[in-house]
């Protein structure tokens, strides 16, 4: 289907009256600039909307307000020095960003990672996924008008996970924890016990969250059959993560690539059916549950041993000329780092594939024909962080 045909069909969907756009009839449209300082935009992001009454006819996303030259800076500093900058991409889940970058560099130099470090990485990544999904659902519900309660419940749980991160890495959000060939500091037995205690409390939290929200009539009325993303469009546009799976496409990089040690864990990939906001919400809830099962397995099986490969170098790190692409299933989708080395201490080229930005590209297609109030919800259901969109 061509773009214009798709748009026309989208616009005609659910319209009870003929569209008011004449051949020259731009004058009947109202142009609204939503953002960049709109509270629902999760940062600084602008949507230029063309409205026909309440209906969205055109939507132009404008971003770049938070651009801070991440990729170019990385070309001028050493490989290790880019690690703390990756924390600041998607600042809700710094540990998965660390992992993706470490994975790319490890691929570039052929570095092995000790068993224990792999387990620690999985544990931290799954904790990150849970707190990201919890807070992103909280934000979504907040945008629906339920000001506070679900978000605060999510933050209460996130606080426990962040306390774990702080105890281990020294920082709550800017963890800067993983290194090429392992992790920076080892987990103590006390930390693992504390982690187990937090994991034991998580199913109760997800149940509570579901009691609060899943069958809520207002939530269902606002979310079901709104912001539909078709699987064909999702695949063509390169959408990844919970958004793609909510459209019913079974694609999880943890299952496809088995990076790290994900082939050792038993977990299921939740899939949606309709690709609407409610499915995205539900897929995130179910992913939290699957993450809890992975955490239980990892915390049970974690072996002893070193956390850093003995051959790993901290100073004088110069990979051989070559290129590598490392990707992981970050909570928001496929996060990849593409590196080219020319043999020097700095990468020759450093490129991030940010899931938030690429998931945002279908925003217009999802919003056409819906109300302005739904645009806020659809935007919230994409789950983006502007630090990663603009880099």
């Amino acid at each position, binding site marked *: 289907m061509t773009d214009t045909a798709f748009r026309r069909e989208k616009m005609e969907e659910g319209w009870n009256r003929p569209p008011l756009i004449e051949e020259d009839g731009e004058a009947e449209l109202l142009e609204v600039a939503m953002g960049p300082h709109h509270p629902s935009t999760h940062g600084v992001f602008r949507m230029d909307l063309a409205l026909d009454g309440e209906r969205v006819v055109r939507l132009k996303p404008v971003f770049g307000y938070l651009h801070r030259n991440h990729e170019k800076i990385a070309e001028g500093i050493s490989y290790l*020095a880019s690690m703390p900058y990756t924390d600041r991409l998607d600042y809700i889940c710094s540990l998965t960003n660390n992992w993706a970058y470490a994975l790319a560099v490890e691929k570039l130099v052929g570095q092995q990672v000790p068993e224990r470090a792999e387990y620690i990485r999985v544990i931290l990544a799954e904790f990150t996924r849970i707190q990201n999904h919890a807070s992103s659902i909280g934000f979504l519900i907040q945008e629906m008008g339920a000001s506070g309660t679900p978000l605060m419940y999510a933050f209460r749980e996130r606080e426990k996970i962040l306390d774990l991160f702080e105890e*281990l890495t020294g920082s709550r959000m800017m963890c800067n924890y993983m290194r090429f060939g392992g992790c920076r500091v080892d987990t103590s037995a006390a930390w693992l016990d504390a982690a187990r205690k937090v994991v034991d409390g998580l199913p109760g939290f997800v149940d509570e969250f579901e009691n609060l*929200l899943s069958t809520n009539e207002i939530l269902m009325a606002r979310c079901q059959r709104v912001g539909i993303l078709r699987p064909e469009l999702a695949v063509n546009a390169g959408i990844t993560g919970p958004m793609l799976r909510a459209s019913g496409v079974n694609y999880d990089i943890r299952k496809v690539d088995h990076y790290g040690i994900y082939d050792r864990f038993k977990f299921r990939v939740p899939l949606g059916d309709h690709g609407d906001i409610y499915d995205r919400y539900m897929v995130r809830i179910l992913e939290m549950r699957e993450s809890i099962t992975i955490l239980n397995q990892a915390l049970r099986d974690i072996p002893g041993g070193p956390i850093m490969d003995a051959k790993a170098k901290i100073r004088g790190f110069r990979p051989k000329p070559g290129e590598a692409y490392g990707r992981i299933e970050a909570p928001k989708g496929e996060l990849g780092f593409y590196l080219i080395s020319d043999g020097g201490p700095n990468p020759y080229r450093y490129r991030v594939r940010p899931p938030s930005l690429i998931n945002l590209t279908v925003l217009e297609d999802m919003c056409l024909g819906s109300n302005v109030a739904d645009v806020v919800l659809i935007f919230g259901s994409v789950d983006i962080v502007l630090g990663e969109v603009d880099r």
Partner: protein
Amino acid sequence: MLGEGILKGMAETARNFVGSYFSAERMTTVEYPEERIAPIEAARVFPFLVYDTENWEAGLRCVACQICEKECPPKCIFIEKSKDKKPDAIGKPQFYPTRFDIDISVCMSCQICVEVCPFEAIKMDNVFELATDDRFGGLLLDRKELAKSNEYYHGIHPTEAARVDARLAAEKVKADAKSTAAVVASAVKGAERPAPPAAGGV
């Protein structure tokens, strides 16, 4: 029944509300600044320089090798290396920083300077109440403001400091053994023929 889901959610909030009167675990906030959480040992805010002896200037462990300056991601460290050498805490002649500034308005607390330092000279502090009305001079710390004693380091990061001290002591023993061996070797050599000036002890 329509509204059942809403009632279920309300029951959940009611349970949380009532629970907060009975369970201490549900009270999740701390009323800072009247009430404070004890600092976590791993906490890191901004770097400081460790000195060993009573005199902060003579006891600085930093030998102005400038590795941290080079590795610092936002380049917030400025070091000027001395022209002459001064004996450090163990008595070995070393270069020293005539100037060591950290601009904490640029620093992003990433701890990479600590990781790359081969001399255990720079460590992370956990003081975070650093608000000032002078955003230029007040946030540019010079080496006097950065210097903190080893006892202070032990106070904020006890396990890490103990590990560092053990490592430094082991290195000192090794260095001492090496220099004695060098002195003995040069003495043996000197007995055979005139010794070249100062071969060992570097």
